[in-house]
């Protein structure tokens, strides 16, 4: 009855099917096949990536929970834990930008509160095609309002993120959402189904025919049949999720439940089998008891549905009444749909018949892992040498063109649609290097940065991977935060193509190496493959989310210049590096390398110096140098201030002026400080063996830059501000 066509539809290969038959010693029925197809999909099984992800360092003295649960957990002292994770919702966001992005937020929030943590911040990493195309504009508009619509309504601040534009994302935008939660250390919950006979509860929205095959969709390329796949998009209900959030946190706070798991991708199938597999138990459920939104749903449909805002809970029998009372208070049903067994099987009944009987370990753990072929992919690694790039005749217009390019321009149009202040903890608002969330009743704060430069990873995935980690950590260090842990979302093309697999392997190795150097554990993440449409793949895009700790929130500083007359110092050394820069891409239309070199030891020293200087209170501001180099960093330091302020810069370094201004040499931070504090900083820098240069002072109405006495530009800061500030709104015709 299960023929070749059926297998293809379920994305299961002949070999995998053979393996399934071996494992269960018979032919599966269609519902069972559906279950395997979900759980053995790339999205759930990580079959192509597993062998590589093993390279990440995952332990450390603060790690409470590493990869393997809904989210990672890090001890932050005071009996508290930071719970965080990042997820992609790329495909749904292209098909239906608003709902796709909204349900992406809903999904990652559930991952966090499932662990017993209250979500305290989300960040989003977005990549679109160029805004010159109306379709890209409407995708961006939809995605941003979808994230806003869900996050604002549920009351979790969206405090930061990143947004890039490149033609490779035109048919395949990337929407990655990160969420951070705060939990009491002794009150973390896991996806467990323990204790034979304990009831299994279903809570939340009713099940409909939503997103059937969603997980398998996320695991295959887009093709001509897009239309057909469309109905798989779900509509989110943030109100329901808010109720679910409050009720779940309440039953966990009261310790009324034993285990809990959200029904995200792969819904009931994933939650039942994973909870049982994690505990070495079995689960038995009766589909007739599942709250259903639509009539006549088959067991196949119910098991595979990806309806949103649902959770599965296991509780002790004697606590059931109390659990149900809490949910009732929040106008939610908590229905008993089955029980924990000791069979290690998932057994599903419908109308009195057993319709599924599968060993959970086969479903959850025994999907084959593939060591896929890799083949170096380096068409553009052919380095440009400086002589290929003509020196510009003048710099003013280049500077302004950079400042107003959507990738570098002010993202306020985006983040003012997000409620980024709710919960009254946002100590650093969007726009800075990282977001900072203070923790009430302590002196502490958590800082978060999302980072990924796909131009680098396109040219050189390994170095690009390293730089992504370094930059995310540098962002935290600029606010004085010590990096504690990492999560990552790896967005790549089709892993069955050796070039893509090579990019993946290289990027993972680079990330792993950097994490080891910084001694920050990877506590979780997500892999999104098949980001291609009609054969064209996105640039390899790893997005790193790093969480750091600030011990004394009063020492916090921000990136913008503070007052006139302050001394401006560049920490780190500038090399003549133009490869893979935003400047080459924007001004010379070159997307080629080499990427800047990175020495992780130097990077660590620079960051440590910055954190130390901040904790000693000798810095007025600190801002890291990244896309757009020194020129853009300076511009931001001037215009991020409530009323923009100018500066006078004098550069005396013997390298090409464009490399000096727009090159993206790593491991550099621009700081400003009161003149009286100069000596203290220099002493620290010398002790840390970090090169530094006094490059100018703050003040005036212009951004004035000279190189060896020659004026490079002298532009009113107000003009820079307008171009930077209005660029994106003007694209959307919003006044």
């Amino acid at each position, binding site marked *: 009855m299960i023929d070749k066509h059926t297998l293809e539809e379920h994305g299961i290969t002949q070999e995998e099917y053979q393996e399934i038959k071996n494992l269960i010693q018979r032919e599966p029925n269609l519902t069972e096949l559906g279950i395997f197809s979900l759980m053995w999909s790339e999205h759930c099984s990580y079959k192509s990536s597993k062998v590589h992800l093993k390279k990440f360092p995952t332990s450390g003295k603060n790690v409470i929970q590493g990869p393997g649960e809904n989210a990672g957990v890090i001890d932050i002292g005071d009996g508290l834990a930071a719970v965080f994770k990042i997820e992609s919702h790329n495909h749904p966001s292209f*098909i239906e930008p608003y*709902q796709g992005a909204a349900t992406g937020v809903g999904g990652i929030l559930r991952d966090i509160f499932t662990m017993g943590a209250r979500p305290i911040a989300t960040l989003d990493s977005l990549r679109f095609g160029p805004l010159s195309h109306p379709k890209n504009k409407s995708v961006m508009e939809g995605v941003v309002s979808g994230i806003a619509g869900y996050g604002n309504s549920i009351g979790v601040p969206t405090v930061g993120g990143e947004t890039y534009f490149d033609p490779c994302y035109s048919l395949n935008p990337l929407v990655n959402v990160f969420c951070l939660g705060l939990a009491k250390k002794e009150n973390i919950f896991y996806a467990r189904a323990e204790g034979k006979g304990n009831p299994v509860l279903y809570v939340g929205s009713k099940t409909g025919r939503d997103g059937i095959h969603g997980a398998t969709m996320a695991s295959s390329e887009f093709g001509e049949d897009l239309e057909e796949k469309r*109905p798989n998009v779900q509509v989110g209900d943030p109100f329901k999720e808010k109720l679910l959030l409050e009720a779940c946190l309440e039953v966990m706070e009261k310790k009324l439940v034993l285990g809990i798991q959200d029904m995200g991708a792969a819904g009931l199938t994933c939650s039942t089998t994973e909870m049982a597999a994690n505990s070495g138990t079995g689960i038995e459920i009766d589909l007739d008891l599942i709250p259903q939104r*639509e009539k006549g749903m088959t067991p196949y449909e119910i098991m595979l549905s990806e309806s949103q805002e649902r959770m599965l809970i296991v509780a002790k029998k004697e606590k059931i009444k109390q659990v149900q009372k809490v949910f009732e208070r929040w106008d939610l049903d908590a229905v008993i749909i089955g029980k924990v067994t000791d069979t290690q099987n998932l057994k599903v009944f419908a109308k009195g018949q057993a319709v599924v009987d599968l060993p959970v370990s086969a479903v959850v753990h025994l999907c084959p892992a593939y060591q896929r072929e890799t083949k170096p992919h380096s068409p553009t690694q052919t380095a440009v040498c400086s002589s290929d790039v003509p020196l510009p005749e003048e710099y003013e217009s280049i500077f302004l063109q950079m400042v107003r390019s959507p990738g570098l321009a002010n993202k306020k149009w985006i983040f003012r649609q997000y409620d980024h202040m709710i919960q009254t903890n946002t100590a650093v608002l969007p726009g800075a290097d990282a977001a900072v969330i203070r923790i009430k009743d302590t002196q502490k704060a958590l800082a978060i940065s999302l980072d990924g430069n796909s131009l680098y990873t396109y040219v050189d995935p390994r170095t690009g991977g390293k730089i992504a980690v370094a930059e995310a950590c540098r962002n935290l260090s600029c606010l004085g935060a010590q990096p504690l842990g990492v999560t990552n979302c790896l967005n790549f093309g089709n892993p069955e193509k050796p070039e893509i697999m090579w990019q993946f392997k290289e990027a993972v190795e680079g990330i792993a190496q950097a994490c080891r150097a910084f001694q920050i554990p990877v506590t979780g993440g997500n892999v999104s493959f098949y980001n291609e449409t009609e054969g064209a793949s996105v640039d390899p895009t790893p997005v790193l989310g790093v969480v750091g700790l600030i011990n004394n929130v009063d020492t916090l500083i921000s990136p913008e210049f503070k007052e006139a007359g302050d001394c401006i110092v560049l920490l780190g050394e500038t090399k003549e590096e133009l490869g893979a820069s935003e400047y080459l891409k924007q001004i010379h239309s070159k997307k080629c390398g080499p990427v800047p070199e990175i020495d992780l030891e130097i990077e660590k020293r620079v960051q440590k110096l910055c954190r130390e200087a901040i904790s000693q209170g000798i810095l007025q501001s600190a801002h890291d140098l990244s896309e757009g180099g020194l020129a853009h960093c300076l511009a931001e330091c001037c215009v991020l201030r409530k009323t923009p302020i100018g500066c006078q810069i004098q550069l005396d370094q013997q390298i090409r002026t464009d490399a000096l201004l727009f090159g993206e040499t790593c491991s550099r931070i621009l700081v400003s400080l009161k003149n009286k504090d100069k000596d203290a900083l220099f002493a620290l820098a010398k002790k840390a063996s970090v090169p530094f240069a006094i490059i100018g002072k703050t003040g005036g109405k212009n951004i004035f830059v000279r190189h060896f006495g020659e004026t490079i530009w002298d532009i009113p800061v107000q003009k820079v501000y307008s171009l930077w500030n209005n660029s994106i709104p003007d694209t959307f015709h919003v006044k």
Partner: protein
Amino acid sequence: MKVRVLVSFKESVLDPQGQAVKNALLTLGYDFIEDVRQGKIFELELKDMSREKIEEMIPEISHKVLSNPIIEKFEWEVID
């Protein structure tokens, strides 16, 4: 000339707004309510144009602009 386009979620798609209204009405004691679905309505005022042109253009803009065919359906009528 006036045309009315009604846009609503397809039957199989969750309609949280309709559900919220339904619950509110039931709580208020309107127990004769079985179900509620909420949608959008657009009233388009048109320049004078032929019936054929309307028959051609209205479905086009309803499909392309006013609704998202992935999750929504539409119907339309001339009202004036």
